[in-house]
């Protein structure tokens, strides 16, 4: 199977002088295949978001390479990156990142407009995805007039409306209550299972991570462990994730 994203020896260093330099990622190797649902977990400052940003064209590694569909991200110019993003990627963030000056309808339509889709088709696709996410009644509202849960659904609708090859989600449930969080994850899981959408997600919540197929645990900028769901049920997978996350604490108790 061909990898959608191939990360080879990815190192990210912040700061310019020796005394201010921080190694956020150190020689990380990772492949993402079509249909994957991968969660990245780890303690604060471990490099989770840095890894996500480097894998999704938002940031560039200091050393090493990231290839998406066989093309090196470093070799892409601004125009190519722009095209690549609206053709292949869908972003979902904790802060929703909706455009406050556009109504919900237009917010969802933006990636389609970028892809030069016809007006009639844009209207049809926006309505279809809005129906799927149960946000039809707020299409004419501005994001400020919507609840947190509704705004996150709008962000998801915008991320999915172009049928992207890869959905990138950074703490997508960070601003949601428990019910909305599980609704969102159930939806992402359904899309992954039924439509084969590839998902790469950062979370600090083990319960949320248990919806994925694979959990990559990162610590001090390196991959410290991987848990795969395979034939496990969600509960057992959840316990394995909790176990991985609490390994350091356990070592502390049983030292």
């Amino acid at each position, binding site marked *: 199977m061909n990898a959608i994203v191939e990360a080879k020896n990815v190192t990210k260093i912040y700061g310019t002088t020796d005394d201010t330099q921080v190694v956020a990622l150190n020689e990380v190797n990772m492949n993402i295949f079509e249909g994957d649902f991968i969660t990245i977990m780890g303690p604060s400052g471990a490099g989770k978001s840095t890894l996500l940003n480097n894998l999704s064209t938002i940031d560039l590694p200091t050393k090493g390479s990231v290839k998406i569909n066989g093309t090196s991200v470093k070799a892409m110019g601004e125009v190519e990156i722009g095209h*690549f993003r609206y053709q292949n990627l869908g972003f979902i963030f904790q802060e929703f*990142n909706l*455009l*406050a000056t*556009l109504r919900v*309808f237009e917010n969802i339509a933006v990636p389609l407009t*970028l892809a030069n889709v016809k*007006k009639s088709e844009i209207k049809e696709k926006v309505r279809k995805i809005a129906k799927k996410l149960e946000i039809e009644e707020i299409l004419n509202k501005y994001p400020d007039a919507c609840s947190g849960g509704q705004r996150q659904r709008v962000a998801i609708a915008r991320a999915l409306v172009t049928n992207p090859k890869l959905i990138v989600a950074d703490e997508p449930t960070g601003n949601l209550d428990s019910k909305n969080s599980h609704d969102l994850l159930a939806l992402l899981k359904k899309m992954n299972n039924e439509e084969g959408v590839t998902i790469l997600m950062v979370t600090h919540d083990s319960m949320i991570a248990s919806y994925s197929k694979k959990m990559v645990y990162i610590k001090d900028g390196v991959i410290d462990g991987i848990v795969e769901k395979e034939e496990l049920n969600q509960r057992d997978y959840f316990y394995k994730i909790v176990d991985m996350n609490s390994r350091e604490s356990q070592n502390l108790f049983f030292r």
Partner: protein
Amino acid sequence: MGTFKLAVKLLFKDFNKSAFYCGSLLFSSAVIFVFFNMMANPVYGGATTFAESANSFGSSLSIIVVIIAMVMVFFANSFYLISKSKELAITTISGGNVLSLAGFLFTQNAIIMLIAIPLGLTIGYFINPVINTAVYDVMGVSANSWAIYPIGIIYTIISITTETVWIVLIDTGYAYRSELNDLLTAERTMKVKDERTMKFPSLVYYILFFGPLVLILSNKVLVDVYVFYALIGSCGVIGIMKFSLPKILSWFQNRFCLAKKHMLIAIGNLNHSLKQSSSLIIVNVATFSFLACYLCNFFNQTNYLVMILMACGVLSFLMAVSFVYKIMIEASARIASFKHLRMLGYISKDIKKIVRIEIIGLGIVIIGLPLLYIVAIFYKSVEASIISFSFALSIILGYIAVFLVSCVISYFVYCNLVMKGRGR
């Protein structure tokens, strides 16, 4: 650390946040000084005593100039308050109450004013003879260009004191009204609330704005009455800007821009900016309509005409600077939005085009709405031979030129703000 020490430390540590505010105070002080001195100058027919000045033509003109100078300071102060909101939030979190927030703002304001106002007055003192010499040459008059008039100084002190008290009151009010959460998000919030107690249909606003225009054009020339018409028209602009135009733009956006990647974003931004700039546009319509009436009324009285032309120049400049401020406030609230657009696939070229469309739209409204009244007043006056066609044309072109320059500056300031630290 006490509030005073914290305020002083933060002010000097990040002085560029207050630099625009300081600059606008400096500039407005210079303008107020020069203008009041001109109004008291007998060469221009100015009043040299309080009794004369109470009924003089120059006093009414001065009031308009001073109000606009204060409007500019108000915009600069809003920009300053927004940039300081996080510092105020930190003071609140650290246990500060309304009084300490007010103290924080008062301390910073006092320092800025102590720097800006004396410097502005000094600059005004040195600019005054330069302007006088140029105008005396045009008028063919020989007089002392450096002359300073006590009545001008007294009015300058009164105006600057009023301005200072006003700013302190506004800032104290801001400290009193703002919730912690509002302070934390003030730099990136973009909410506009419809706070009308009575809602009128859009037609009412259109009648209020276009009705006086029709009356100007269809009746025989009555320049004195035009001031009253312009006042009614300005009331119409309030509704058009806040409620009618946004509806039209939303319809236009939905009907024609959905498949156009630049227009879709730019029209949404323009809609928001127009709502936010409504007060500036209303002041613009009222000010320039009044000045157009004054120009027509005193076209044959050279000394008054010189004063009005000076007022036109100063006011155009002040309004244009206020426009740039407004754009800066808007752009700084949109930095995150433009960052999101990049993540969606927009590139630098697209972002510049979006900004360009928005600025062109804003420019059309800001220049166009007052221009309708100016052109109507001048058209009737030229037709009745009250003013010459070439004079009317040069005033109109001058007015357009000043605002076009401010649009160009706004475009670069806007792009600079939203493209800063853009990454990939």
